[in-house]
């Protein structure tokens, strides 16, 4: 019984860490335009819309976070093998991984933006200096929380995978959850704030991203501030739910009978299916169709 109570406490802690990691990951990727909306940041100068948006996307979020979290976890594991205190080892590992993220962000921004020289897009050194450090700070939070939850899963809950492999797996899952949930909010709601609310961006408007703020030109810190409100928190809830529920059903029910954990997992899937259907029907009823059905059939 004590073992299960201890496990539930660790599970709650990992869920909280995952929630913070998800929110930081999405905000970091939005400041760096790393998710799918990077295509519009790259397209805009080609359509004649020069901008001061940071763009460090040369890999998708899942492989990038897989790399950084595996790197942070691997270095922390190496420090721990050298008898370093686990807290210090994790911090040192994550700091080194964050420097790799900083190098990646710098070379990616310079490389991507330099390729737009023929369209007149400048490489802004002040953008490079101010944005890179902000993405590094957010990346550190995301990597630190993920590596810490991996260490807890390995050391306290007894998962058989070594720490670097857990870092890779949960890093990829973090990037997948964060990009899936957060990308639409940055891509549609922020980059195309000049389009109508409550509708997708018409394909004809591609590339015409919002480039001006209340005063002066918009930069990516403005985008991080805006998307942290819904995109970031939704990504955090998404990743937090994934980690917490996966661990909770295993810790509580697998000790009693492995099939109970499976049945509880299936029940959770069914509950989320019902919630999803409710959201879909709610939107159809409350927002209504864009055109009348007869027109659509024609």
């Amino acid at each position, binding site marked *: 019984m004590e073992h299960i109570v201890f496990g539930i406490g660790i599970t709650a802690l990992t869920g909280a860490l995952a929630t913070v990691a998800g929110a930081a990951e999405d905000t970091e990727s939005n400041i760096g335009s790393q998710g799918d909306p990077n295509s519009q940041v790259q397209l805009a100068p080609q359509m004649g819309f020069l901008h001061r948006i940071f763009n460090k996307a040369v890999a998708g979020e899942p492989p990038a976070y897989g790399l950084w979290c595996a790197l942070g976890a691997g270095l922390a594991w190496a420090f721990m093998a050298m008898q370093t205190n686990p807290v210090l080892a994790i911090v040192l590992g994550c700091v080194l991984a964050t420097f790799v993220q900083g190098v990646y962000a710098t070379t990616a921004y310079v490389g991507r933006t330099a390729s737009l020289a023929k369209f007149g897009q400048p490489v802004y050194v002040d953008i490079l200096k101010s944005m890179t450090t902000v993405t590094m700070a957010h990346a550190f939070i995301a990597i630190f929380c993920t590596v810490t939850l991996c260490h807890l899963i390995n050391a306290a809950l007894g998962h058989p995978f070594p720490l670097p492999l857990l870092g890779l797996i949960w890093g990829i899952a973090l990037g997948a959850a964060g990009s899936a949930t957060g990308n639409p909010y940055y891509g549609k709601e922020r980059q195309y704030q000049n389009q109508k609310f*409550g509708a*997708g961006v*018409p394909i004809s408007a591609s590339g015409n991203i919002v480039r001006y703020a209340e005063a002066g030109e918009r930069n990516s810190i403005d985008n991080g501030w805006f998307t942290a409100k819904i995109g970031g928190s939704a990504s955090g809830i998404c990743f937090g739910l*994934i980690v917490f529920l996966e661990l909770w059903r295993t810790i509580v029910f697998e000790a009693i009978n492995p099939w109970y954990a499976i049945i509880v997992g299936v029940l*959770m*899937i069914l509950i989320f299916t019902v919630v999803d259907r409710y959201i879909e029907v709610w939107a159809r009823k409350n927002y209504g169709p864009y055109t009348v059905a007869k027109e659509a059939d024609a």
Partner: protein
Amino acid sequence: MSAVAAKPQAGGAMNPTAMGVGVVMLLILLGICWYISPVAGLSVLIGVIIGGVLIGFGTHFVPVGGAPAAMGQAPGIATGVAMLAAGAGLAGLFGGAWAAEQGVVVAVITGGVGGGLMMAITCMMVNFVYVFGMGIPSASGKVAKDPITGDTQAEYKSQGTEGHGLPFVSFVGGVIGGILGGAGGTLIYVELLGLYEQALPGVMNVTAAQVMPIAVSAAGMFAVGLFLVNAVLTAYNITGTIEGPHDPKFKRWPRSIVASAVASALCGLVAVLLVVPLPI
């Protein structure tokens, strides 16, 4: 419909010769494994191939919209095919590896449920953001009615887009994809772990307890690697985006199955050769 109209799109055309070559390559790889290790190695390789095929087939179900989905221009989840499938499948592998001691059946089902749960949460949150964050209802661009609920789709598409969000059929497809991916990844892990636990103590001349961390790590790395191989291969087959099982691109799955089987057989053979000495 005329013969010309019935011709499949160029990207979806099946090439019988290429598929035949693939099957021959698969048989050759199985034959090599049978020659090297007729009992243990061959059964493990067959398990790895089945796991790889499950991953490849499951990836077709995952609704991925890529960059257009991030602007609400196309339905699906706004990320890459391989990335999302890998995220879900690896979350399943995580759970399956934990249950590996309970036997193959429990571990594989646990892995499948873990992958399905990850996708169910992710798909639900995607719709949550579309509906409550952006005020956009779900609409498919590929079918007039949702095949499961019967909801009409065309009038819910906003002007100038191909649809947006995740209609219910896409949600169900995502969960099925996560289940198949998680189960396939776990099957590969469990098969390789069993082989390594048996063979590594003899190869390295150490006790079974000492070899466990190495066996778990090696089997885990191969499972992750094979997952990425199969997910990326399938992403090429899908060519960018897919809405789910109702999308016409879904019909391309036989081609991907053959490719996944051959790639898994080659990678699996390397994994087996790590511990089985060549008979020379």
